[in-house]
């Protein structure tokens, strides 16, 4: 009887913790998406949007986690300076990709589905976005570090980080960290 009570109590505590986590994560995401959509609505072009949206995205996306997961286990072979350089370059690429998806004047209609917590400290929020007459399924993966941060965006089943991981793998095999950084620099320098 006592063990049953303890079991139920622990279940309730876990459940309430998970609920609180997912609510908090969802709140952060909604606020961020709303801010970005408003900025996007006033931006003249994607280049300007990339610049104006950067300060907002830096606070809601963990670019460091994104970069190290995109590179994979090879990340351990990067020096501190190389890690920082790769993160900065990758941040630029991600923001540019994100900004290019917005068209000024078009406001997305977002429907949030019930968040799930696949692991402690992680939340996945599925959304259905109606944008320019088409529906898109977008999943935001978030992790709790200092606060809830987005660590991946999955659009119609295509994970942003997984796509970069495939590309970085080939670069890393060719020439290690310098090859990855060089490829990032080349991509960032490419005209838009």
């Amino acid at each position, binding site marked *: 009887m006592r063990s049953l009570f303890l079991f139920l109590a622990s279940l309730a505590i876990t459940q309430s913790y998970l609920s609180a986590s997912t609510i908090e994560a969802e709140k952060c995401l909604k606020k961020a998406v709303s801010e970005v959509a408003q900025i996007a609505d006033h931006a003249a072009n994607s280049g300007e949007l990339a610049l104006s949206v950067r300060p907002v995205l830096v606070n809601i996306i963990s670019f460091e986690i994104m970069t190290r997961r995109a590179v994979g286990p090879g990340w351990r072979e990067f020096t501190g300076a190389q890690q920082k350089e790769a993160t900065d370059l990758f941040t630029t690429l991600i923001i540019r*990709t994100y900004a290019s998806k917005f068209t000024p004047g078009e406001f997305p209609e977002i429907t949030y589905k019930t968040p799930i917590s696949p692991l402690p400290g992680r939340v996945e929020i599925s959304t259905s976005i109606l944008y320019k007459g088409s529906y898109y399924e977008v999943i935001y993966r978030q992790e709790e570090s200092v606060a809830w941060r987005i660590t991946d965006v999955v659009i119609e*089943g295509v994970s942003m980080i997984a796509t970069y991981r495939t590309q970085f793998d080939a670069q890393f095999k060719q020439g290690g960290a310098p090859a990855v950084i060089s490829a990032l620099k080349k991509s960032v320098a490419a005209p838009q």
Partner: protein
Amino acid sequence: MNKKLITLLVGILPLTAFHKATAAGGSASGSDIVVITKEGVKSVSLEGGRLPKNSTETYFLKSEVEIKGRSVAKPIPNPSPKTKPKPVSSPLAQTTSKPVKADKVAALPQKLQSASAPSPRNVKAIVKKEVPKRQSAPPQAPSVAKAPQSKPSAPQVPSGNGTANITITKKSPAGGVPKDVLDEYSQVALIPDVIEPLNRGFFWINHQLYTFVFRPVSKVYGVLPKPARTAVFNVYDNVEFPVRFVNDLLQLKFKNADLELRKFLVNSVAGVGGIMRVSDRIPALAKVPSADMGQTLAKWGVGHGCYIVLPVLGPSSARDTVGRAGDYALNPLTWVSFGGISAGASIAMTAPNAINTMDARIDTYDTVTKNAIDPYQAVRSGYSQYRKKAASE
């Protein structure tokens, strides 16, 4: 006390043995199987290479039971600090491919150890399943694609029934997240690219077509007012109803087939031949998942085959190319084209749809390739993930 120890050891060791045997590609003979009874260890006679039917006994490998017997007879003293612990393959190590040291296993909390060790009931299930499988397996190890160096904890395994078409990776039990968090995204399935040089050639040609032909044509077409473009899209989408409807039926998705039918009727009647998509205003019909023959083949267990970049059409796989042909056959526009009309009339009928969808295709292409490190790999990865999701719906 001894009985408990025997149960624990017996629970751990056979699994370790099977893990090693599988890794070595070896096969176990029927005479190696034993059963533990109150009277002692008894050999099991296999009937036609199979374990007795309807048996509730727990079966073990003979060699492992003998090892266990010796261990029980001579209790192992606590290892001194100078003694080098012998590495043992633990059930915990199955997810990582790294051997776990015996002292580390011992250092684990007792609850965790007992949770990790399979119970005799579980082992029974494993033995029953594994023995006939390995006896029927060919003697040589299956051809397994070599995992890239940067993915040490993600061994690649071929898919079932000998058709190793899609590279899949072992999932760890912890919600799909491997022990090494940096290696989390090694689990992404990629379609094998056995004709990469040829594919890269077609990718380059398609890139030139996109840049110098499709993009300008799309821009010119873009001067048409948006409602007109939307109407063209809606009409073609409505006409292609049989493709989605038949594939829903072939996938036994009767609910979706029903929704597709309703959507077609609503748009054809209330939407004036599909010019207006009235179904979008009905919540149940607004987001009916689209079905195609590639998905159907996937549902039927057909693997991707190799990755193929089709000229003009773009990324595909062997399976999806066959599927595309099937969809083409189901498209009413194809029936009309083959119904005796002139080539000019056929082109005039299909061209608006091709041009109309070009803009969306270019947009998707740009999103994937514009900020890519290697655009070819980015498209391949994106396509693999997208089709994986489509097949799982």
